């Protein structure tokens, strides 16, 4: 039904990415390349998707996610395999804020995986999309990137960097057939948030969030809040006067 026939997913083992992939396959995809850091986990996702859509050719690449040369090589390999219509960059990891404050090593690791790694992938894909002259580059940021908060600013800052990077790419490709889309999920029920959930937090279902992402990507929305209500919530939070904001325990 759609023209989005070839898709690359970085961080393909993410629950959000998997659910997006399942929805895309239902709509019809010809070829897919899944990139993950662990062969077994990535193959597990590929096997699942192959059962769901036997007509789609699905390949996997395992890669280092931090080394610039490895990232460049992986992206070349993916784009030699298929000419993607959509690239989704989904990986990330939610660190303990307190650990990051006490241990700079962990702090750095969190910044690397949530900020540096995705934007290096994005930059490498941007080059390929530019050559191909079309395609959608989708990055997953977070509502946490919209305003720094004491409970989560290391992760938030990393996602903020992704936000700004996406903005720059959007500017660069304005008026072209290349679209750069930024997804900002709210708290979602995935393995990443399992420890928050056990303390009783209310989380959106990953199916719901994936459906929001897939429809936002189809419409070419530059910023996709998922679920959509977070757009309003974050509008308010971003604009709360500091005196009020500082009273809040968030």
């Amino acid at each position, binding site marked *: 039904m759609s023209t989005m026939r070839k898709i690359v997913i970085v961080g393909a083992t993410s629950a959000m990415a998997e659910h997006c992939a399942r929805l895309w396959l239902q709509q019809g995809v010809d070829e897919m390349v899944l990139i993950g850091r662990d062969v077994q986990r990535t193959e*597990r996702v590929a096997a699942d998707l192959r059962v769901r859509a036997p007509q789609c050719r699905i390949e996997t690449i395992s890669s280092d996610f931090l080394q610039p040369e490895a990232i460049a090589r992986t992206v070349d390999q993916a784009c030699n395999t298929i000419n993607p219509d959509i690239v989704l960059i989904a990986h990330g990891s939610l660190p303990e804020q307190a650990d990051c404050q006490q241990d700079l090593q962990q702090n750095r690791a969190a910044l690397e995986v949530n900020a540096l790694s995705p934007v290096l992938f994005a930059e490498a894909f941007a080059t390929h999309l530019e050559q191909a002259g079309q395609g959608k580059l989708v990055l997953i940021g977070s509502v946490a990137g919209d305003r720094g908060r004491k409970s989560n600013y290391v992760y938030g800052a990393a996602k903020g960097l992704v936000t700004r990077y996406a903005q720059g790419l959007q500017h660069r490709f304005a008026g072209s057939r290349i679209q750069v889309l930024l997804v900002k999920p709210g708290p979602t029920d995935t393995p990443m948030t399992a420890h928050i*959930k*056990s303390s009783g937090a209310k989380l959106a279902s990953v199916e719901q969030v994936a459906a929001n992402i897939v429809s936002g990507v189809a419409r070419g929305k530059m910023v996709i809040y998922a679920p959509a209500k977070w757009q309003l919530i974050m509008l308010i939070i971003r604009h709360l006067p500091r005196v009020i904001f500082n009273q809040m325990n968030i």
Partner: protein
Amino acid sequence: MKVYSWGRLSGEPHAVSMLASAGSLPALADGQRALPHGMGRSYGDSCLNPQGTLWKTTALDHYVSFDPESGLLVCEAGVLLRDIQRTFIPRGWILPVTPGTQLVTVGGAIANDVHGKNHHVHGSFGDHVRQLRLLRTDGSVIECGPEQNAEWFAATVGGLGLTGVITQACLQLRPVAGPWMETETCPYHSLDDFFQLADTSEAQWEHTVSWIDCMSGSHSRGIFMRGNPAAADISQPEPAAKALTVPLVPPVSLINPLSLRPFNAAYFHAQARKSGRRIQHYAGYFYPLDNLLEWNRIYGPRGFYQYQSVVPRHVGQDAVAAMLKEITRSGAGSFLAVLKTFGNRQAVGMMSFPQPGVTLALDFPNKGASTLALFQRLDAIVREAGGRLYMAKDARMPRDLFEAGYPRLAEFLNYRDPGLSSALSRRLIGY
């Protein structure tokens, strides 16, 4: 966090963690016990482990392989039956056995050896499991099936999550023409009628079930529903999946004697008017309540029980009549009351519920002592009839009835995983 089972009788704190990989289990601290937990669609306490750990399996939701020649599907245990139906019915394959909701996991369906409306033809869920992989808390892995490690298989099918965590299963799907069912609705006005309908339908119809008006006393009126997969593909648009959610827990049960009698009467007459044959989509036919999400909230903050028994056929009619009489007299009960026959076959699991006979299932709003007193009277009838109660629904059965109903208990205990325990196992087995 507080965890409720489907009956919402208790919301006790549990340490909940999501199993992320089918390869290994999280370590357990000394003396700590865990329990695998699927969709929590069991009504009572079989899926709960208060003050202990729950391992949610719903992220183990990957297919592993499917062979379109043989219909063999290998998948992880957290896959929902709904997803299997949605993926494979369009390709001509269907799950041979599903319960009255498709929002359950493969692991949960195996651990309760669930049954559907077609027991007389296809038995229970375990009859279609070719193999499963069991992960024990000591780290060992046991592959078992009807031919391989058959004793482990028999312990784990219907094994209530107590023999290990099922991480993956191989299921035999059945060919199907499409998503449509040919159904027929027949009102009945006595238990005699019911049994006659059941007996005469079994040869021709794959699915049989009946709704019974538990307020009708000795008249025992109800609606008998039978169905077959429609033979050729029917080109009707499939209904869009629309779901409503019961938005809150009302302060008191909306199901009470005042609402029930007129409601049941209205339902009976409406269905009786619609009697006859028609074509129905499989989802609406098999899983009528799945579009009303969280309907279990209508019973209010105290929750509800389901009481499901099976009694042997030769005493079945008398036992069912006696139970209905007690229920009508008590004025308890609810709209959700199901009466159906099981076929003449033994289940594969040592602790499986289905056995030849007739099964009656009813919901009861929890009104405390009076509800429990009614159950004691029903227990006496079941005990006398040589029947058993269904653990997937149970939160209160007495131990002697459990032991009498499940004669293979001692054998089953040899296969327990000492790292796993549930509220039900502590209540009925001691640990």
